[in-house]
């Protein structure tokens, strides 16, 4: 059904002033959910739905740290391509304000659009020769479901987070966040469109914190 991206905008928790922007590391492992249902329809696209849940297959998680620390405006442009009738990468995590390019590497038209509340846009039909490459800037945190109007089964997920500290786990669920500012923050793990785990953490300079989920 409807995607419920978690809206973690106003989670201003215990702020630790004077946190150092370097040295601090959080690493650990997220126990990724086991998908028993073999995906059929969306196998190629690496997005599976189960009971309205959107997640990647194989499962991946996004680990990000939220807190009241300085958030520099992102300058780099990220790419989410369409290749072989699929979004590459399937799951993209970006900081709020990031500009994402949507180049088309297929020989066919794509028509990328999103009706998600976090970002509604419609790039219209375009081919690989389209210049400038259609792009969008994501200003609101939340999960954005990308669709193609021509290829109805194409799905892409963009998780817009209000932090520069985020990482996507590897297939085993391992992650490592480095250069974190010290202080009391909240470490969140996005598992799928409906599940986000969170845990308050205290980050100390020079220390390596190990947090496993759950």
């Amino acid at each position, binding site marked *: 059904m409807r995607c419920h991206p978690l809206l973690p905008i106003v989670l201003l928790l215990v702020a630790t002033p004077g946190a150092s922007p370097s040295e601090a590391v959080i690493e650990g492992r997220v126990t990724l959910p086991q998908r028993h249902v073999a995906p059929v329809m969306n196998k190629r696209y690496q997005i599976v739905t189960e009971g309205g849940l959107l997640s990647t297959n194989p499962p991946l998680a996004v680990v990000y740290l939220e807190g009241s620390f300085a958030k520099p405006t992102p300058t780099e442009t990220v790419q989410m391509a369409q290749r072989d009738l699929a979004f590459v990468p399937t799951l993209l995590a970006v900081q709020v304000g990031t500009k994402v390019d949507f180049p088309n590497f297929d020989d066919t038209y794509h028509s990328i659009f999103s*009706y998600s509340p976090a970002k509604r846009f419609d790039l219209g039909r375009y081919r690989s020769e389209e210049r400038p490459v259609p792009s969008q800037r994501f200003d609101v945190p939340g999960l954005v*479901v990308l669709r193609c*109007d021509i290829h109805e089964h194409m799905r892409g997920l963009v998780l817009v987070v209000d932090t520069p500290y985020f990482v996507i786990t590897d297939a085993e669920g391992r992650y490592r966040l480095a250069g974190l500012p010290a202080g009391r923050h909240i470490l969140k793990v996005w598992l799928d469109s409906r599940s986000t785990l969170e845990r308050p953490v205290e980050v100390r300079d020079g220390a390596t914190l190990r947090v496993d989920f759950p």
Partner: protein
Amino acid sequence: MIFPAKQRTTGIAGFRTKLLLAMMLVVSAVTGLALFFAQRNVAANVRHNLEREFQAELAALHGVQQVRHAALAERCRALARKPRLHAALEDDAIDLLYPTALDELSDVMDGRDASAGDPSAFAFHATFYRFLDANGTVIPPPTANEAGALSHRDELRLSASAAPTRPQIGYLLRSSGEVDETVDEILAMPIISTETGTVIAALVLGFKPFGLTTPESGLRIRSGIWLDGRIHLPALSTPAARALSGQVEEIMAAPVGAEQGLPVLINGAPCLLFCKLLNPGSIFPPAYEVCIYPLAASLARQRLLAWQFAGAGLLLLLGGLAASHILSSRLSLPVARLAVDSEENRVQRARAETALELTHEELHRSARFSADASHQLKTPVSVLRAGLEELLACETVTAEFREEVSALIHQTYRITSVIEDLLLLSRMDAGRLQIEFRPVDIAPLIEAWLDDFSALPDQPQLTIENAIPDTLIVAGEKRYLSLIIQNLLDNALKYNRPGGQIRLTARNEADWAVVIVGNTGRPIPGPAREHIFERFHRSTAAEDIPGHGLGLNLARELARLHKGDVRLARSDEQWTEFEVRFLLANPATAVAKASP
């Protein structure tokens, strides 16, 4: 037994009338039967044709409708798969649903304004659309115009208890006024989430029902829709439609046999009514297709056919009656002739019978008479002769007188001879002479006669040549055979000329011994030849010759009694030949000696 002529003709006329009546009856019956069967056959044919015709039209109509439904469903299915609609429903963007639909369904809705022009050209264009949510309630459009105008009441009627899981067909009767009502065909297509596989909504499209039954289509069938107890049939006036709806409900009560059609009267015109449930199993109220097939043309055709049959039957009947009339008079003709003939035959036969009876009686009487006469005559002749002989013996009689008496005695012998011949003939005539067939040698009989002849006192100077074999054995009775030969030889002697010749020969012819008595007698003239064998016939040229005209007749009658015959074989100036044939007693023995 002889009918009067009048009665006979009335009998024949009666026969002819009866024959005519019977034939007319048969002709009428045959014609009637033939007509009956032909009429029945043709009527069945017509009914069959009619059924086939309307089934074909119905099938054509249904076929088109089916194709259209399939096409519409396919189109709706494509619409229901539109990613943007899915996105609007799934990605929490319900406010974008109708705006997106306006975009996506724009080509489907294109015909909205033009539908009044040529409806068939916009058969695939929708007049309105609505979305139902998962609970089956209508998601109201932001502005009615975008999704096609629909009153709130009608919108409510689109709602269902839940969004349908399968495509559904329904009908919506919209009344914009008191009279003007339109029917929309609605197609509800579930929108199934590609993510969950469940029905998340439904798209309901309203179409103008496709009418094939315009006059231009060439089909006689008129179709309409029964919905909510009312009939919507453009070709029908409102009161007629109301009257018909009762009958439609009747058909719906008995669903079996509805395919056959129910004969009904619409505005006084006979029609066939068909009903068919259009949306079986639908979540929408049941709607029936109501088809009316006018029977007027078919009935007119049938009536024409009936007239034609009646005409043909009348002609056939007239022809048959004429033929039977001719035939009966033809047939009665030989019968009439037969009746006349048989009448004549009967008369003739009666006459012949009477004549025969008469003849027989006369014959009998004459035979008896001749027998009686012979007996009665013999006695006085014997008395006369005795008296004469006594007179001759008297001494007082002079020599001259004696000679006279002697001649008289001779005459008595002749009389006796005649009487004996007559007696014999009468016996033969009476059929009382029976021949006992025995072998008799006739050669000695001839010899004996020749001896007697030579002993005659006043024998003429004749040369007699006897070529008869020594024995010639034939079948018969000796005295009669002797009589035959004696008569023939007497004749040959009597009618010979002085110094003439008599020649006797014999030959064999199969079972016969033929004895030929030839002489140099006077020729028998042609006309007399037929009569020489008649009784008491005497040749006019032979009046001076003694005889009484019985000899030849007697010889022939006797020969015939012996199964033989006597005939004149030759008679000319030089030679006269009589031929008598006898049955050989033993043919094998006689042959060798036949010729000397």
